[in-house]
């Protein structure tokens, strides 16, 4: 009886709290003061940043613009709108166990299970009323086909404007011009909707902050070459990556990466690593990892295996030129190694494996990932030719129904044994 009551009330209370700006005010304060005082400054900045954005989105403080991970958020900060990140919400829903219900909701509304689970989850959260109402939705055509269509469906739901940034395949001068033109058009469209003139100085400022974040991220990445590696691999592909996607261009983004660098510097100086005794160094291929409770990283670390780097954290773009803001943002987007011919990504994988002196590579094969699934065997062949073992680890980033603890552990165990035998 009590159990039943709890089961009925808990989602209602949770859902109620998640729609309330005060909840996010509380979380932001927790990030700002609680985490920082507990010596977890980077996590604190992330929490403050994320919760702060959610608070202003729920309060509708300014235009709410939804965007996907590969959208240049620098633009949104320059426009002083409130960005909202449905993919982050999907990952958080997975972390806190809200994913299953959300995914089931989306599947009941014609989203077939072969649509990426992050999008199914985001659609479901929206159906449950857990995402703040958008005024505009923007999406990029990269890295995968999913974002544009799903985001557009959502925009139809709300009757709000939608804009797709079409990212060409080849990085050529024509492609840069095409993309820069779209960025400019979009900026003016949003400014018009806001009813205020667009200030180029604000964009210049945002690019400077983005460049600053980039500098510190490069420095932080360099520290990950240290043995033992100072940053846990799981952290690198969660809040650090989230900040890498959505932080650049904001003061919090710059502060975050500076703090990250300082924290890692401190750990390297003290010889402290994510793994006590680092026996194997691994490279993680894919932009994501499973965000629901799972024991992949804990297990690896317990066996002395450190995921010392991931392709997602690599800084592939040049510093942006504030004098040519739209062209610079276009260049940043087009220089992503996952856009364009597969050789770019395979080449990067090899370069990172050498730079970070890894013993092996885990290629996380997110179920049905448009961007990575088809190419992973090509990448494996390239690596194996150089004698670098690769494990293609099947799984799912947001849909915990596709995770089997035992099976995953078995595969990791076999892989580590193989690395051991290779020594």
């Amino acid at each position, binding site marked *: 009886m009590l159990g039943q009551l709890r089961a009925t009330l808990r989602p209602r209370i949770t859902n109620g709290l998640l729609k309330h700006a005060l909840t996010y005010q509380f979380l932001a304060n927790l990030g700002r003061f609680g985490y920082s005082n507990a010596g977890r400054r980077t996590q604190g900045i992330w929490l403050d940043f994320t919760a702060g954005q959610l608070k202003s989105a729920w309060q509708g403080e300014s235009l709410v613009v939804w965007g996907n991970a590969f959208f240049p958020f620098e633009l949104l900060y320059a426009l002083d709108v409130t960005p909202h990140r449905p993919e982050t919400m999907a990952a958080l829903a997975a972390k806190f166990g809200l994913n299953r219900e959300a995914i089931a909701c989306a599947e009941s509304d014609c989203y077939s299970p072969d649509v990426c689970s992050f999008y199914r989850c985001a659609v479901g959260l929206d159906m449950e009323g857990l995402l703040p109402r958008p005024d505009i939705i923007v999406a990029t055509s990269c890295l995968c*086909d999913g974002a544009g*269509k799903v985001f557009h469906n959502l925009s*139809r739901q709300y009757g709000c404007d939608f804009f797709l940034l079409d990212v060409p395949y080849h990085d050529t001068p024509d492609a840069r011009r095409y993309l820069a033109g779209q960025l400019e058009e979009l900026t003016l469209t949003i400014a018009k909707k806001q009813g205020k003139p667009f200030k180029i100085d604000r964009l210049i400022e945002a690019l400077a902050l983005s460049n600053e974040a980039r500098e510190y991220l490069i420095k932080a990445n360099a520290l990950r070459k240290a043995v033992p590696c100072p940053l846990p691999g799981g952290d690198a592909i969660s809040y650090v990556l989230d900040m890498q996607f959505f932080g650049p261009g904001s003061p919090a983004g710059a502060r975050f990466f500076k703090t990250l660098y300082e924290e890692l510097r401190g750990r390297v100086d003290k010889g402290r690593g994510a793994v006590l005794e680092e026996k194997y160094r691994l490279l993680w291929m894919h932009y994501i990892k499973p965000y629901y409770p799972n024991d992949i990283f804990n297990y690896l670390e317990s066996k002395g295996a450190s995921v010392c780097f991931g392709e997602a954290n690599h800084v592939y773009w040049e510093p942006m030129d504030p004098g040519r803001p739209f062209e610079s943002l276009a260049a940043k987007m087009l220089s992503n190694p996952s856009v364009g011919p597969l050789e770019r990504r395979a080449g990067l994988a090899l370069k990172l494996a050498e730079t970070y002196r890894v013993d092996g590579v885990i290629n996380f094969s997110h179920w049905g990932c448009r961007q990575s699934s088809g190419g992973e065997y090509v990448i494996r062949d390239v690596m194996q030719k150089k004698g670098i073992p690769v494990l*293609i680890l099947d799984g799912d980033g947001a849909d915990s129904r596709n995770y089997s603890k035992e099976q995953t552990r078995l595969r990791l165990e076999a892989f580590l044994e193989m690395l051991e035998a290779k020594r």
Partner: protein
Amino acid sequence: MERFKEILEDRHEYARAWKKRTGGKVLGYYEPYMPEEIVYAAGILPVRLLSQHEPDDTTDRQMYGNCACSRDLLNQFIKGRYDYVDGLVNAEGCQWMLNAFQTTLNFKTALFNHYVFVPDYVDGKTSKDVMRSELEVFKKALEKWTGKAITGSALDHAIEVYNTNRRLMRQVYELRRADSPVVLGSEAMEMVLASQVMDKAEMNDMLRDAIAKLAERKPRSDTGVRLMLVGSPTSDVELEKLVESLGANVVIDEICTGSCYFWNEVIPQPDRLMAISLRYLGRPHCALKDNNWRRRPAHIYQLYEDFQAHGVIIAKQIYCHPHGTDNPLIWKVLRERNIPFHYFERDTTLPYEETRLRMEAFINMLKPELVLK
């Protein structure tokens, strides 16, 4: 009519014979946005790579989670079915096909290959210029490969041949509007599919002949419920035949290997590459390219009305994400207009009994519509 079926079924043989006869090159392509006119003007035979029903026992170590259509093409390459193909082109479509293209090139390293970027934002202000510049690059690549310039008159000729083909196919489809059509859905689909693997000039002669013969046919009295087919591309006519065996007829389709392939023409203009760009950007959008404005639902509705269908079958390939993410809006629009539809997921092969049961139930449900319309 039989000849279209034969060519479709023996498409590899057809291409080999063409090569032998002409000494020309064959270019395989993956997606419907490939500007065939330029290839044809270069004296090359463009052949759309179509999946077939051979067990896939090869691609497991190459691809993961992809749709069967894309895996099947890789399977065919591994097994040497396309050994006559001299080059591969992928005009930007879905990522699964891109995977098939990239993975094939990983071991077919000697093939000529090219990637044509096609804007996803097809209605963008500068999209046509971008597309045109892509076509220019593509044209140069073909010229380099063949060692021959593609002249303006060769392009004019190719445009004319392709436009004629489109007009003739439209004539065949127009016959399907009739209350008692003289052509069955399966026959019409066989023609469109065959035209994608044939030399268009030869196809045009065959089509003229076929249209003359169709004019002599008596209208059929057994075509019953009129259906529209929407969804992922197909490479066979099994579904149409199944429906016909149940006393119904697919009178119109909106799929990229069907009507969308030939629906609009190149409108000639002095800048030939621009004319071709505009044709491809202006074709009925495939699910993947139907982005900012979402014209597809309206086009589907228009066809449904024009061909007086009683209901719509939406057939999605399993793991087809362009259609998987496009469908919610299609559903919404059909529901808003009270259009009966049946949605199901299929593989390159059709699970026959299960599909028959579904179709039977749907067709029975639509029978009252026959009286009402």
